[in-house]
């Protein structure tokens, strides 16, 4: 072999490793677009007073409320959303396309409208709410449960869409194989289907949790805003914005860092 040949080989290898500019440029612009607002937030953060602001009991209470309600909402979404995704992906029934279109409605309607819709159904005078009140003395609005309901409403489509996609990608022949081995449909689902789509369920749950954590419009409309019971971090940020924009920046940053830490932690554990 002649001397220049290895050099050429290296050059070729280097070239094949570099992504084409037609992808690279838009990708970098995309990153910049997503990251610049975050840098803006960091740049305007009053670092000096950061410590005392974060340990403010009102902030801690809103943060705890946000984390706990988003987690409960995600659990509810998993319990309801995974079976729904299964039905959409695997079962044949009339109106399936319509149902699929309907479950994405919360993605497209403004959350505030979603909150009003929830009030009209589950509010004290709502279609169902009035019976809940009459029969059980149960009123949902202005309770922590209402916060969870509002979050479930806006976040569940993210979970359903992710899990349905994963189910469609999973090979149904494995389910048939399990059936020939004597597995009931429930066993097939829990022992074969669910493990196969677990990464999709995880991704969906993470999206769902993030959406629930950031939820504002439906929450403030349906659950109201009261520190300790219904004032989650996004509501606290909005209220702070009215009087003390610096405090709003700090609160936003706290919310952002906590959610990034949780999501990164989950991802690290799942891979």
């Amino acid at each position, binding site marked *: 072999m002649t001397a220049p040949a290895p050099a050429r080989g290296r050059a070729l290898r280097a070239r094949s490793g570099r992504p084409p500019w037609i992808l690279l440029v838009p990708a970098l612009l995309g990153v910049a677009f997503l990251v610049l607002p975050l840098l803006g937030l960091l740049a305007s953060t009053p670092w000096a007073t950061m410590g005392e602001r974060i340990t403010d009991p009102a902030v801690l209470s809103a943060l705890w409320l946000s984390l706990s309600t988003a987690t409960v909402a995600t659990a509810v979404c998993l319990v309801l959303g995974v079976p729904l995704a299964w039905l959409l992906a695997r079962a044949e029934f009339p109106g399936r396309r319509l149902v699929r279109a309907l479950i994405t409605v919360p993605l497209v309607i403004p959350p505030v409208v979603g909150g*009003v819709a929830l*009030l*009209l159904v589950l*509010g*004290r*005078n709502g279609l169902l709410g009035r019976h809940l009140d009459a029969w059980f003395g149960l009123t949902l*609005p*202005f309770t922590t449960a209402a916060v969870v309901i509002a979050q479930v409403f806006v976040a569940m489509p993210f979970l359903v869409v992710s899990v349905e996609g994963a189910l469609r990608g999973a090979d149904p022949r494995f389910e048939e194989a399990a059936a020939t081995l004597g597995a009931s449909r429930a066993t097939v689902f829990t022992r074969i289907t669910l493990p196969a789509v677990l990464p999709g369920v995880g991704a969906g749950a993470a999206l769902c949790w993030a959406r629930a954590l950031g939820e504002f419009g439906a929450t*403030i*409309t349906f*659950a*109201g*805003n*009261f*520190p300790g019971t*219904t*004032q989650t971090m996004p*509501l606290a940020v*909005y*209220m*702070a914005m*009215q*009087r*003390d*924009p610096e405090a709003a920046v700090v609160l936003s940053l706290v919310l952002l860092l906590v959610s990034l830490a949780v999501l990164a932690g989950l991802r690290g554990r799942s891979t």
Partner: protein
Amino acid sequence: MAGALTLTACSAADGTGPDAPGAASRDGLTGTLTVLAAASLTDVFTELAEQFETDNPGVEVELGFAGSSALAAQINSGAPADVFASANTDTMALVVDGAGLDTAWAADHGRDGAVFATNTLRIAVPPGNPAGVEDLADLSDDSVATALCAPEVPCGAATTAVTDAEGVEIAAVTLEQDVRAVLTKVELGEVDAGLVYATDVAAAGDAVEGVDFPESDSAVNAYPVGVLADAADPELAAAWVDLVLSDTGADALAAAGFGAP
């Protein structure tokens, strides 16, 4: 929003140029006027804008309504506008100290803007007043679900002023982000009472009932208006403020439930 306002500013410049020679009115007033006003002024200012455009055929009025604080923040961030009408003096003060008012206009009308209306709190209850609310003290009862404005927003500040002055503690179930949200809760019957402005009760029509209470005098909210330092045409902006301060303006404001300054 900023983008739309920028376009408006451009067209204002065009309107005074040679492209629109026939547009000049008797008074020489022409172009586009951008007015940013507190959301509670929506109906009154929309009506006055029609009047203004009829009186001055070469003028087009662009109205922007939102919470006073949000508008003040936009103005101070450089959003182009000619006139700002705030729902309270504190918020106007933010603009006076920030983007500033037109110095010539301020010299004539006051450096903190001109107060053109007042608004007082009223108790809004659902039609039929199911909880039988009669005065402010009733709202301290735990069995009366009450919605208030959050203390961070102007109507909430007014609420706090009243309750502090009278020593009443209201058992609120929610602290809403604006007066409209309080009203929605009352209209839907989700709460038994809400503290809102008299003007909001008037605007809601039959959807809610209003209950007056004497303690409202402790928080009379003044509405100041001012011509902004960055106004493209201060003369045109001053003409709009004159209309607001005129008898025509006063009648329209009174009809909407505002008090006189």
